[in-house]
């Protein structure tokens, strides 16, 4: 009897606290759902627009099979609809060529940047450098400060340089330029990542029988994987989206997707459906890369190593 009374008293006492917690949770989830909607809507809109006709686009129809009947119009213009897939299509060839250029330029440049950037960042994180009056911190800032320069300043120099080197309209030219472009960010991210790894881990590895490189490759890099993946994803996105230099330095062979997307606004107005199909195709690889690599970005990988 006393136990029951006690329990009742306790539950009466606890209820407002629990209620507060529930309300708090509901508020947080409501906010998160709202933000997820805001973030995902443009993607949904792009994908759905690629299946609309002109009238649906103009009237702002949003929900397929209720608002409008999906149609392959956009994809047909790219030669990628079921009925055109096996016919010859110059637009599709053009699209696939640019898609390939974009994939190769982005992935190669990002890989190169992560490899070079990781080495540079490791050096900045672990060794002391002096370059004239500049020390590690100044050198790091020097790298990052390269981002302050607007790309347009480099337009003329690069045009001249690439002309001399015969890099104009080549993939290798784009790859090198993109590597240079994303390197500062990669170095910055990786240096932060290496700074969080206790130096004792490498020292332990060296006592255990590793050389400096051995400790870097066998101990530091696996632990720094989350940072590397994050840097890689960011690099791929930046390279994938790059428009200015792609438009400037390429003409036929090495043109990338953003240039093609942007050129859809012709003199007859914008063909929303084909632009949407093109954009959707351009977004897709990023989504795939993001989803595949996201699981490597695990926080707290160093947990438990030191205390």
């Amino acid at each position: 009897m006393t136990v029951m009374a006690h329990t009742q008293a306790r539950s009466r006492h606890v209820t407002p606290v629990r209620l507060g917690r529930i309300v708090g949770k509901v508020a947080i989830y409501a906010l998160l759902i709202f933000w997820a909607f805001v973030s995902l809507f443009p993607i949904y809109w792009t994908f759905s627009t690629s299946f609309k006709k002109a009238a649906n686009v103009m009237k702002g129809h949003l929900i397929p099979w209720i608002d409008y009947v999906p149609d392959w119009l956009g994809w047909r213009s790219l030669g990628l609809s079921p009925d055109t897939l096996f016919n010859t299509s110059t637009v599709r060839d053009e699209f696939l060529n640019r898609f390939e250029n974009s994939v190769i330029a982005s992935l190669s440049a990002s890989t190169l940047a992560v490899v070079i950037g990781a080495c540079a960042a490791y050096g900045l994180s672990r060794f002391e450098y002096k370059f004239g009056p500049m020390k590690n911190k100044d050198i790091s800032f020097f790298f990052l400060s390269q981002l302050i320069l607007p790309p347009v300043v480099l337009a003329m120099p690069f045009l001249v340089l690439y002309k001399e080197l015969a890099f104009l309209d080549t993939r290798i030219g784009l790859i090198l330029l993109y590597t240079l472009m994303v390197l500062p960010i990669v170095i910055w991210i990786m240096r932060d990542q290496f700074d969080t790894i206790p130096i004792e881990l490498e020292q332990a590895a060296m006592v255990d029988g590793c050389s400096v490189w051995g400790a870097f490759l066998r101990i530091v890099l696996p632990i720094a994987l989350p940072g590397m993946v994050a840097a890689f994803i960011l690099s791929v996105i930046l390279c994938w989206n790059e428009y200015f230099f792609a438009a400037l330095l390429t003409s036929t062979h090495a043109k990338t997707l953003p240039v093609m997307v942007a050129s859809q606004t012709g003199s007859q107005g914008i063909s929303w459906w084909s632009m949407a199909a093109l954009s959707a195709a351009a977004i897709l690889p990023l989504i795939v890369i993001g989803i595949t690599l996201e699981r490597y970005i695990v926080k707290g990988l160093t947990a438990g190593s030191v205390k």
Partner: protein
Amino acid sequence: MASVDLIDVRKAYGDHEVIHGVSMHIADGEFVALVGPSGCGKSTLLRMIAGLEPITAGEVHIDSRIVNDLEPKDRDIAMVFQNYALYPHKNVANNMGFALQLRGLPKAEVEGRVRRAAEILGLVPYLARYPRQLSGGQRQRVAMGRAIVRDPKVFLFDEPLSNLDAKLRVQMRGEIKELHQRLKTTTIYVTHDQVEAMTMADRIVVLHDGVVEQIGSPLELYDNPANLFVAGFIGSPAMNMVHGTIRGDGFVAEDGTPLPLGRAPAGSDGRQVIYGFRPEHLSLGGPVSTQITVIEPTGSETQVIAKLAGQKIVGVFRERISARPGETLSVGPNLASVHLFDAQSGHRLT
């Protein structure tokens, strides 16, 4: 197993010298503790022996071979770090077997040796776990396991117990000592905790500001400290020290209180000295009266903090004392255990 010799080892960062010529011989199989307050250079010295810190001058020999220019991996040493430094992406078995894998030993042998070490340390149930899934004490054991699987010439411990709670520290202290008795590997153990050094080591090296103050067995340091620093550092509670002057064959404190002295060193009349005695070398009912400030009975003994000649002293007595704070307690230092130090140099006189 091997001996370790340091010959006039120095370390400087730029113009700033932090280790001022340390020499010592550590015999094969010996357990030596480097002890001193933080910043005294003991960890730096250990890291120089390990090869993680370049040696500015002098020589380090391991097994009669100069290792100054050898990489850590070529010195055949194993080190346990203060923060354990376990590889977070490897499980316990791979953490312990990493060094053996690097040496290219066959998989079966690596597994066998890891298993034997795990048995010694009671880690067998945890071999598949990752460091983050272990408690502090278990991590500490893994760090030790990583050292012992290699069967190195020398073990180096850098304050391995300082991150554990008091109870676990005492337990691990016993385990490390037991391990040493079993493996008989030459061990250099850095700690700032003099109790750890006293209880574990065959010999203790007391370092202070990059200089060796004294080297000796724990009881040698306790009974015959070479100077004021060692006297004050070794022993807990610390040695009582009273400032004063030698007058004839006696000692007079600064406020004029005479304290008993067996015999003053020859020719020391009028010399400024420090009169030191350990808390447990006081006995009740002596010629000196003190005023009690605090009484702390612990059951087995009674600790008394009191004022003697205007200075605070601590006494530890076997007897139970019924006196209260503010009252007077008559005590007398055990004459055979009184230490005299020169007030200027801090060196021992008797």
